C-alpha cells in the first residue's frame, strides 16, 4: 500500500481541476459510486444519502455489491439520486469515491468521461496522466484520525466522506446531521457526537481548492404531498407482509433472504404474532404450514437452495389446498452458486418445482416499492384461492434502497383471525364445485364429521381415494382455481405506444433498466414499447392481444438462454402462445442489466 509521503499532494493537480467545469452546476441526476472494503462503512454512507434523498422528495436508487466472505473484502455502494424518475442505479458513475488502491483500479473504468474521482490520497495513487477525469485527492484517513483523535483510528472516515460529499453537492446539512443523530444517537450520545465531528471535518474541508464546481440538485416540486419513505427490498417485503395481516412464519437463514426473517422475528411480536427460526428448511416450511393449518396465513422464505429443500412440502400445500406464502430472494445458481449476486434463474423452480401436477401462484416484484405491494397481493390471492403463492424477489432488490411514496396504510392494512365459526352439516373440505376454504382446528363441525387434510388424493370429504375418475376431477379442481385467478388479473400497463416494432417483456428487478432503455430508444425514434409481468403463473388472460400489435417480442431476463436459445420466461411464453416472434435476451454474469446492454441487445 502506498504511504502518505509518496502520494502526490492533492494541491499539485491544478491542471486537471478545470475539467470539473465540464459538468453543469445544476444537475437533476447523479450517480455516486463509493468503492472500498465492506468494513469501511460505505453502506452506511450510501444509506444516509438515500435517506436524505427520500426526505428531500428526490428519487433515489442504490446498488450494492457485497463480498460473500464473512468479513472484509472489496465492496461498492452506488447511489443514484435524481430529481426526475430514477429507473436504474446507473450504468456509469459521475462520481467515484475510492478508499483503496484496489477500489481505484477496479472501478475507474466505471467512471464517466469528465467524471470526478474523489480518492483517499493516503492510500490511492491514481494515474494522473489519464486526462479523462477530474482528480480530487484528499487525505481522508489521516484527516479523519486528526479530527477524531488517536483512539478512533480511521473509523469514521466514511462519515468524513459524507461531509465532503455534502459540501460538493450542497446537500442539506441540517437534514444530514439529523439523520446522523438518529442513526448513532440511539446507541449512545457520544457516538453521535464523534460522528458529527467527522462529518464537520469533511464538510469544512477546503474542497474549493480542488474542484472548481459545486453542484446543486434542482428543486423538486412534488404534487400530492405524500411523504417519501426509504427502505430496501427485503424491508419492503417484510412490511408488506405485516400490512397484509400475516402474523406467523418460520424460516432458516440464507443469503440474501435472511434480513426478511430478521425483521419479521423482531416485528411480529409487536402485533402478537410470531416468527420462528427452525432447525432446517424442511422444518421451516412445515411449521409455516402448521400455522396456516391453524387458520393463520403464514410465510416461509429462503433463497434458491433452501427453496429446493422445501419443494416436497409445497407440493403438499398444493394437494391439501392450504394457503402459504413462499418468498424466494433469488441469487445466482445452481447449487450454492453465487450467493451474493443477482440472477432470475429460479422461475422454473417456482412454477414447476416439485413432483406431480402441483399448481401454485408465482408473482414477482419489479422494484423495492413493488416488493411491498406484491406481498399484499400474494396474501390476497393465497386467502381467496387457498393456495401456495410464491413471491420472487432477488439479490439486487434485497439490498437496493429506494425512496417511494408512503403507502396509504389506513387503506391497505389487513386484519386476519382464524375463522372458527361453526361449519354446517355437510361441510366438505374439498368441494368439486367451489374453491376450498378450510375449517381450521377449533372449529365446531355441526354435522359431527371432522376434516382431515391430506397429501393423498382424496374425495370431497378428504377421504383418501385412488379412483382414476376422481384423480382427474381433483386435478382439474386444483388447476381451475388458477385459471379463475388468471381471468381476474389485470393486463400489465404498456410503456410506450400500444403498437410498434418491438415489445420488451420483463419480470422482476429488470423493470427499471428496461424502462430506461425504452425511454432512450424512443428518444432516438425507435418504435419500442415494454410490458412488465407481475403474475408469472398464471399469466393474465389477453397478453396475446398485446403481442399481436408488435413485430417482435423480446423477453429480457437474467438467466441462461438454455439449450434451445430461450430464457426461462421466454420459454414459458413460447409454450403458452406458440408464437415464433417471441425472442430472448439473457445475461448471466451475476450483475443487473445495464441500460446500454439492453439497447445493444435489442438493436442487434
Amino acid at each position, binding site marked *: 500500500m502506498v504511504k502518505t509521503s509518496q502520494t502526490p499532494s492533492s494541491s499539485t493537480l491544478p491542471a486537471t481541476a478545470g475539467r470539473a467545469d465540464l459538468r453543469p452546476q445544476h444537475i437533476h441526476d447523479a450517480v455516486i459510486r463509493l468503492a472500498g472494503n465492506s468494513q469501511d462503512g460505505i453502506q452506511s454512507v450510501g444509506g444516509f444519502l438515500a435517506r436524505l434523498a427520500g*426526505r428531500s422528495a428526490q428519487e433515489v436508487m442504490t446498488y450494492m455489491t457485497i463480498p460473500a466472505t464473512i468479513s472484509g473484502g472489496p465492496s461498492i455502494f452506488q447511489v443514484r439520486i435524481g430529481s426526475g424518475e430514477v429507473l436504474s442505479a446507473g450504468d456509469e458513475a459521475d462520481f467515484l469515491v475510492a478508499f483503496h488502491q484496489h477500489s481505484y483500479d477496479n472501478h475507474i473504468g466505471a467512471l464517466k468521461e469528465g467524471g470526478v474521482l474523489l480518492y483517499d490520497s493516503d492510500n490511492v495513487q491514481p494515474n494522473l496522466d489519464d486526462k479523462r477525469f477530474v482528480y480530487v485527492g484528499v487525505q481522508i484517513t489521516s484527516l479523519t484520525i486528526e479530527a477524531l483523535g488517536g483512539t478512533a483510528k480511521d473509523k469514521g472516515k466514511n462519515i468524513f466522506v459524507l461531509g465532503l460529499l455534502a459540501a460538493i453537492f450542497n446537500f442539506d446539512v441540517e437534514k444530514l446531521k439529523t439523520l446522523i443523530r438518529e442513526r448513532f444517537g440511539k446507541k449512545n450520545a457520544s457516538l453521535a457526537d464523534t460522528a458529527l465531528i467527522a462529518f464537520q471535518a469533511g464538510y469544512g474541508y477546503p474542497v474549493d481548492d480542488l474542484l472548481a464546481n459545486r453542484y446543486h440538485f434542482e428543486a423538486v416540486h412534488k404534487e400530492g404531498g405524500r*411523504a417519501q*419513505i*426509504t427502505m430496501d427490498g427485503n*424491508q419492503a417485503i417484510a*412490511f408488506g407482509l*405485516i*400490512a397484509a*395481516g400475516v402474523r406467523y412464519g*418460520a424460516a432458516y437463514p440464507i443469503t440474501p433472504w435472511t434480513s426478511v426473517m430478521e425483521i419479521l422475528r423482531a416485528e411480529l*411480536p*409487536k*402485533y*402478537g*404474532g*410470531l416468527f*420462528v427460526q*427452525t*432447525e*432446517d428448511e*424442511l*422444518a421451516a416450511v*412445515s*411449521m*409455516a*404450514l*402448521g*400455522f*396456516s*393449518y*391453524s387458520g*393463520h396465513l*403464514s410465510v416461509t422464505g429462503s433463497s434458491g437452495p433452501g427453496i429446493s429443500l422445501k419443494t*416436497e412440502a409445497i407440493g*403438499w400445500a398444493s394437494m*391439501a389446498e392450504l394457503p402459504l406464502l413462499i418468498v424466494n430472494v433469488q441469487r445466482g445458481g445452481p447449487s450454492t452458486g453465487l450467493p451474493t449476486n443477482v440472477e432470475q434463474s429460479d422461475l422454473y423452480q417456482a412454477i414447476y418445482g416439485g413432483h406431480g401436477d402441483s399448481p401454485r401462484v408465482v408473482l414477482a416484484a419489479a422494484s423495492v416499492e413493488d416488493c411491498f405491494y406484491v406481498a399484499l397481493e400474494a396474501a390476497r390471492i393465497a386467502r381467496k384461492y387457498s393456495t401456495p403463492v410464491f413471491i420472487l424477489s432477488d439479490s439486487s432488490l434485497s439490498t437496493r434502497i429506494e425512496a417511494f411514496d408512503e*403507502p396509504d*396504510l*389506513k387503506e391497505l*392494512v389487513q*386484519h386476519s383471525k*382464524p375463522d372458527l365459526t361453526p361449519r354446517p*352439516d355437510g361441510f366438505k373440505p374439498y368441494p368439486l364445485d367451489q374453491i376450498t376454504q378450510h*375449517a*381450521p*382446528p*377449533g*372449529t*365446531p*363441525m*355441526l354435522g*359431527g364429521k*371432522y*376434516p*382431515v*387434510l*391430506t*397429501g393423498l388424493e382424496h374425495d370431497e370429504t378428504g*377421504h*383418501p381415494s385412488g379412483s382414476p375418475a376422481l384423480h382427474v376431477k381433483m386435478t382439474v379442481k386444483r388447476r381451475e382455481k388458477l385459471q379463475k385467478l388468471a381471468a381476474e388479473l389485470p393486463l400489465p400497463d404498456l410503456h410506450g405506444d400500444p403498437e410498434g416494432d418491438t415489445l420488451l417483456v420483463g419480470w422482476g428487478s429488470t423493470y427499471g433498466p428496461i424502462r430506461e432503455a425504452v425511454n432512450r430508444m424512443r428518444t432516438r425514434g425507435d418504435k419500442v414499447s415494454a410490458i412488465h409481468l407481475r403474475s408469472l403463473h398464471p399469466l393474465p388472460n389477453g397478453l396475446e392481444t398485446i403481442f399481436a400489435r408488435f413485430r417482435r417480442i423480446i423477453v429480457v431476463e437474467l438467466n441462461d438462454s438454455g439449450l434451445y436459445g430461450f430464457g426461462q420466461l421466454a420459454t414459458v411464453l413460447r409454450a403458452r402462445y406458440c408464437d415464433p416472434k417471441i425472442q430472448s435476451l439473457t445475461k448471466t454474469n451475476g450483475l443487473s442489466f445495464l441500460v446500454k446492454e439492453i439497447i445493444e441487445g435489442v438493436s442487434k
Partner: protein
Amino acid sequence: MSTTPTATEPAKLTKSALTAERPTWCPGCGDYSVLAAYYKILEKRQFAHENIVTLAGIGCSSRFPYFVNSHGAHYIHGRSIPLATGVSLSRPDLKIFVFGGDGDGFSIGGNHLEHGARKNVNLTYIIMDNSVYGMTKKQTSPTSPVGFKTKTDPTGAMDRPVNGVKKLLSAGATFIARAHASQINHMTQMIERAMDHEGFSVVHVLSDCSEFFPDAFTSANPRKGGEYNIIEEKKWDQTPEDELRHDVTDEAAAYRLADRPFPGLFGVFFQVERATKNDLEDMWIDSVRLKTSHCSDLEILQQSFDRMK
C-alpha cells in the same frame, strides 16, 4: 345425549363420535391397540371435540388421523413434528397429538425429533415402533435389530439400531416413556401421563407388525412367554425399598435404564419440568407487547414507517 351437537351444547364425547374410517391396518397389527387406547383416553377426558387435533407423517401408523374423527392432517414423511409445532405455538386452545412410526421418528424425521425435544414444544408424540418398514413391505428400519433379514438387507441388518429413549434423553425431551401395544392398560396410562405433561412428551410404543415382523417383541409379551418389566418409580416414602426405585428426574439413571438389553424396560424413564417453547415465545411476545399492546396494528405499522421517512 343423542341430539345433534351444536356450538353451544357440546355432546358427550363417545367412542362412536370419535370413530371415523375403518382402519386399513392388517389383522393383528399392534396399532389397533394404540387407536383403542386413544379413543379410551379422549372419552375419559372429555375434551371439547373441536379442540382435538390428530396429526401424522407417513407410514402404516401415520394413517392414524383417518381413523379418528377429529380435526387432523396427514402430512409428509418425517415432518409431522414441525407441522405440529406450528399448530401448538399459534393455538394454545388445542390438544395436539402426533402419531408416527419408527421411520418417521427416528430416521427421515430424526432431526425434527431432536429439535422438537430440545425446544420442548408442548405436544404429545406417540412413536409406534414395529422395527420394520411395513407400508413398503419389509425393508430395514432404524430400529431393526442387527441380523434381521429384510428386502434391503437380505443377509441381515448390519447397522446398530437407534435407542429411542437415549436419543430423546440427549435431545432434551421432558417426558419419555416406553410401552408395548399388547399391554394396553399400561400403554394407556403412559399416553395419558404424556398428555398431562406440559412440554415435549413422547411415548415410544412397541407395536408388532403382524405381516413383516410378527415376533419382533415377543420377548416383552408375558402371554407369549416374555417378560414385561416395568420401571418402579420412586414414591418418596422414606422406605428402604424406595432407595432402589427410579427417580424420573435423574437423567443419568434414565440412561442406565435405557441401556438394558432388548426388549428393555417399560414405563416412565424421565420426566422434568422445563420452560416450554410455547412459554418462552409467549414471554418474548409479552415483553415486546408491553410497548405496543395499547396500539392498533395500524398504529404500530405507522410508527415503523415514520422511522423510515
